């Protein structure tokens, strides 16, 4: 993934991102740290085309973000939202996880197979027939991740993945993410959680990347 001079201004005039440059190699994991409102989530929403840059470019595997490449980029970049309740919108867990493959043109049979495989990967195969809103917070997070994995993405972008999770849930999630081969971008305030998965981080400040270094250095330099 390559982001060059990315700037974004909301309709109300708030400049959320200013000239952001960023690169992420295949298979790597990087943590995105920074205060609330520093632009982390806005940045993440650009990575699969939910928001489109005011200026600058985003490209994934050489595919530049534009209408023609949007569907393929969304298949390659899986975005796990902070609140799983927002992400789970289909009537059953299985249908929700199968939504991505179906939307990208897979047959119902293939989509179901991918969904079952993804659910098994996150340890939620036994909940396939349940309604998503009947699950616990930890289970919802796992199903949300399964919904992304079912699309076989090359990059996972996780926005505050530990929100609403208790300590055992957080440990389980860290183990799960650690076992996945995809590149990962972790947007988090939870430094111990980030440390379990990577040593590298970038620090966002007022819509800019203020530092690209190790988590330890960011903790020291910014008192994080």
């Amino acid at each position: 993934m390559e982001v060059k001079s990315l700037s974004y201004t909301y309709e109300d005039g708030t400049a959320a991102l200013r000239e952001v440059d960023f690169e992420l190699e295949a298979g790597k994991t990087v943590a995105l740290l920074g205060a609330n409102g520093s632009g982390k989530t806005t940045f993440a929403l650009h990575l699969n085309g939910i928001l489109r840059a005011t200026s600058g470019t985003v490209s994934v595997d050489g595919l530049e973000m534009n209408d023609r490449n949007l569907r393929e980029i969304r298949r390659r970049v899986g975005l796990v939202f902070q609140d799983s309740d927002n992400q789970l919108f289909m009537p059953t867990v299985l249908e929700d996880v199968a939504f991505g493959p179906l939307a990208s043109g897979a047959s119902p049979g293939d989509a179901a197979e991918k969904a079952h495989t993804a659910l098994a990967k996150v340890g939620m195969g036994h909940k396939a027939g349940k309604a998503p809103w009947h699950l616990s917070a930890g289970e919802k997070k796992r199903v949300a991740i399964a919904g992304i994995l079912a699309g076989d993405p090359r990059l996972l972008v996780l926005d505050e993945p530990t929100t609403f999770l208790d300590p055992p849930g957080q440990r389980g999630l860290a183990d799960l993410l650690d076992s996945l081969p995809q590149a990962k971008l972790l947007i988090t305030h939870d430094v111990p959680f980030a440390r379990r998965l990577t040593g590298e981080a970038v620090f966002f400040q007022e819509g800019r990347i203020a530092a690209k270094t190790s988590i330890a250095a960011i903790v020291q330099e910014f008192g994080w």
Partner: protein
Amino acid sequence: MRHVRIDRWSRGESYFHTLHAAAKLVAALTLLLCIATLSVRSLVCCAVYLMVLTVSVKAARLPVGRVLLSASAVLPFAVCFAIITALSGEPDRAAMLLIRGYLSSLTALLLISTTPMPDLLAGLEWLRAPRFLVQVMQFLYRYLLVLIEEAGAMRDAAESRAGSVRSLAVRQAAGAAGVLFVRSWGRAQAIHRAMMARGFEGHIPRFREFPLQRSDVAFTLVAAALTVGFRTVLA
């Protein structure tokens, strides 16, 4: 998570719960059609329908008292029209309006209390209902739960500070209702974003087929025949 009571009932275990949603939908629609076309002098038929519905509620292992009470939720709306009709000099028609409203509500309640929403939507798809309509219903249901969740969270917050939401002044309650809709709108936007992130382009693809069993067909035929039979003989 705040469970919706009817949703919990719909996941019960009884003969009615095992039936194909399309079979129950056809039976319910037949009954609704018969109820809607009853004349003002069809009180015996209404009584029979009420008895059949009550026995069905019992057979579905649902709490009879609560279901019968819940079905009266439509009455405040029906009463408005009944009063207007009565004032225009047609008291029989006004009474029938209330009875029809109650029986229709009870029929719909029995249907949704024995059929989980995903199955009901699949049943509608099976019956070749317009997919757009089914999707709208699906999102309506999803967003209704969002609205209930948001309302519950706000109620808890208000009660923790005010002691009881009943102590809120009308002005405060109106303000809270406005905030509820704004919050729900925000939540709905977040859900839409999550859908787009996973490839949603305005169309939800069909996921599975539901085979209809012979027993489902038999149920539909018997239920429809009895419903129409009562309507023909008693009304």
